[in-house]
């Protein structure tokens, strides 16, 4: 039972990490109707920046604090140079252009930081253990990820539901032409939203860096998972992304933890150990496929509901 609770916590932690990534993706997707495959690259760049700054200044927090504004700036530059030219065009163009950006970013990172990959060391107090569930020591850093995820969720909820910018964002998602006609600077709004999305992706990268290795291509696998999340949650819905991220995170973790044992009883140990990771990985995609077929608008259809 404690093992089960511990795995649930792990799942929650993975889910909130996914949420950080998916939130930016779903905002950009919902508001600008942009398929951004390069979102994973921003995640990777965030992790690299943090690892590099942290090493240089010998502090995890300087790494974190320096990586986020740089990522925000990078997002804004990227939006002005490339992304802006993609709005209102065919999704195929989005896929191609942002695929090209992935190639560019992967190689740029290799050029700057080398092919070997980096590590991001934790400050001492984050490297300790705490008893969240009585009797089970749990890493403090994983708790920190959960807390950051929840804080970002609360911040985004406040931003989107209770501020003027959030109102414009919602209005822009519902009817961009009308918002533009009412005199709102849509261009600037889009640039800002993309920048915030980039910043969130980078934050996800920084948070993931100490538990995963910082390496080239790290953004690609998790990007696909983030897409799964936003499709299940409903494209454009931050709330949907939150719920779906936790569902995906928990299911994926529990599948990996308990499927081998469950399969062992029916198929024998050898077959179970090879099949279980494949099945639990496949299960997530099956879930997404099921959603797309039965309920393509997702759990929480975004207001406006184009397409």
């Amino acid at each position, binding site marked *: 039972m404690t093992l089960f609770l511990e795995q649930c916590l792990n799942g929650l932690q993975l889910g909130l990490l996914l949420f950080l990534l998916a939130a930016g993706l779903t905002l950009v997707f919902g508001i600008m109707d942009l398929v951004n495959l390069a979102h994973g690259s921003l995640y990777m760049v965030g992790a690299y920046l943090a690892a590099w700054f942290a090493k240089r200044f010998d502090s995890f927090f300087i790494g974190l604090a320096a990586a986020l504004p740089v990522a925000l700036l990078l997002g804004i530059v990227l939006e002005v140079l490339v992304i802006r030219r993609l709005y209102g065009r065919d999704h195929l163009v989005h896929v*191609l252009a942002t*695929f090209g950006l992935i190639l560019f970013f992967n190689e740029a990172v290799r050029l700057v930081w080398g092919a070997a990959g980096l590590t991001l060391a934790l400050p001492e107090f984050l490297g300790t253990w705490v008893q969240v569930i009585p009797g089970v020591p749990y890493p403090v850093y994983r708790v920190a990820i959960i807390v950051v995820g929840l804080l970002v969720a609360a911040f985004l909820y406040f931003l989107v539901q209770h501020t003027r910018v959030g109102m414009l964002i919602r209005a822009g998602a519902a009817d961009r032409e009308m918002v533009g006609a009412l005199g709102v600077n849509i261009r600037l709004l889009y640039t800002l939203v993309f920048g915030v999305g980039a910043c969130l992706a980078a934050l996800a990268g920084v948070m993931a860096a100490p538990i995963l290795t910082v390496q080239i291509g790290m953004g690609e696998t998790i990007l696909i998972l983030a897409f799964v999340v936003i499709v299940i949650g409903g494209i454009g819905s931050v709330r949907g992304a939150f719920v779906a991220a936790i569902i995906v995170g928990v299911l994926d973790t529990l599948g990996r933890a308990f499927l081998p044992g469950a399969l062992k009883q029916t198929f024998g140990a050898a077959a179970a150990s090879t099949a279980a*990771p494949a099945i639990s990985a496949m299960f997530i995609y099956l879930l997404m496929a099921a959603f797309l077929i039965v309920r393509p608008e997702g759990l929480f259809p975004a207001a406006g509901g184009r397409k």
Partner: protein
Amino acid sequence: MSTRLQFALGAGLLIALAAIPPVASLAGIPFLLTLFTRIVIVAIASVSLNLILGYGGMYSLGHAVYIGIGGYTVGILAFHGVHSGLVQWPLALAVSALFALVTGALCLRTRGVYFIMITLAFAQMVYFLTVGVAKYGGDDGLTIARRSSFGGLVNLADRTTFYYVSLAFLLAAVLVVWRISRSHFGMVVRGACANDRRMQALGFPTYRYRLAAYVIAGTMGGLAGALLANQTDFVNPEMLSWTRSGDLMIMVILGGSGSVIGPVAGTVAYMVLEEVLSGITEHWQIILGPLVVLMALVRQGGIVGWLSPKRHA
């Protein structure tokens, strides 16, 4: 794009491709033959993707899965001691067709960006399956001890023979797509791309037509996979990773989607460019990436569109 220009471009490309083996041996660069064998095989996959992407408006971001399915069918059969191409290849095509039929039936219920995502999801499922099944190599892939044998008919172990066999299949694929694009069936698929509702109102069950096109494309992709497995004597999950599917998409658009010969030109151009750039610098992708972005931004019918005379300014 005019039919005559397409024909001229196609004939020119075919003659150039047919001249590769003697050129490679005369110039003493055997690598040229290896590269172009690969190019010809990948071109089969591009041509098949074009059938659904260019003509049908079905933006599949999971087409490399068929290369993987075809390749793994050959690899797994060889692993179990079945080396006859007469068993391996038809089975590779059949498995690809079946996968396309089942997933296509589901995918085609969605539209637009959802279609991109669901094709990606199904491809990822198979990808993780190949990674997970340790019996067939898992992450490390599966080495194929012997190439498919066709009795005394053809010897695929001979590099030149293998090249011409691949080229013949490419020619066949181009001709198939050419015939389809001009048939009644092809017209319905193209019509459904332009305005599905109107086609349905005219009484065409467009879903069935689109599904049939999807299955044909998948089957041809499986053929490319069977060939590729034989060329490299090896299959691994990387063959069907989603970035491979992205590459295929780029090749189709680069060449000119919705023209029969465009994807072949696009594949040759993209893969030769990759080779040339990687010869210049180790960090060639830093040049290729922005080129792809640029290509997407100025997308004007690709190479084929660029060669065509402009009809309107």
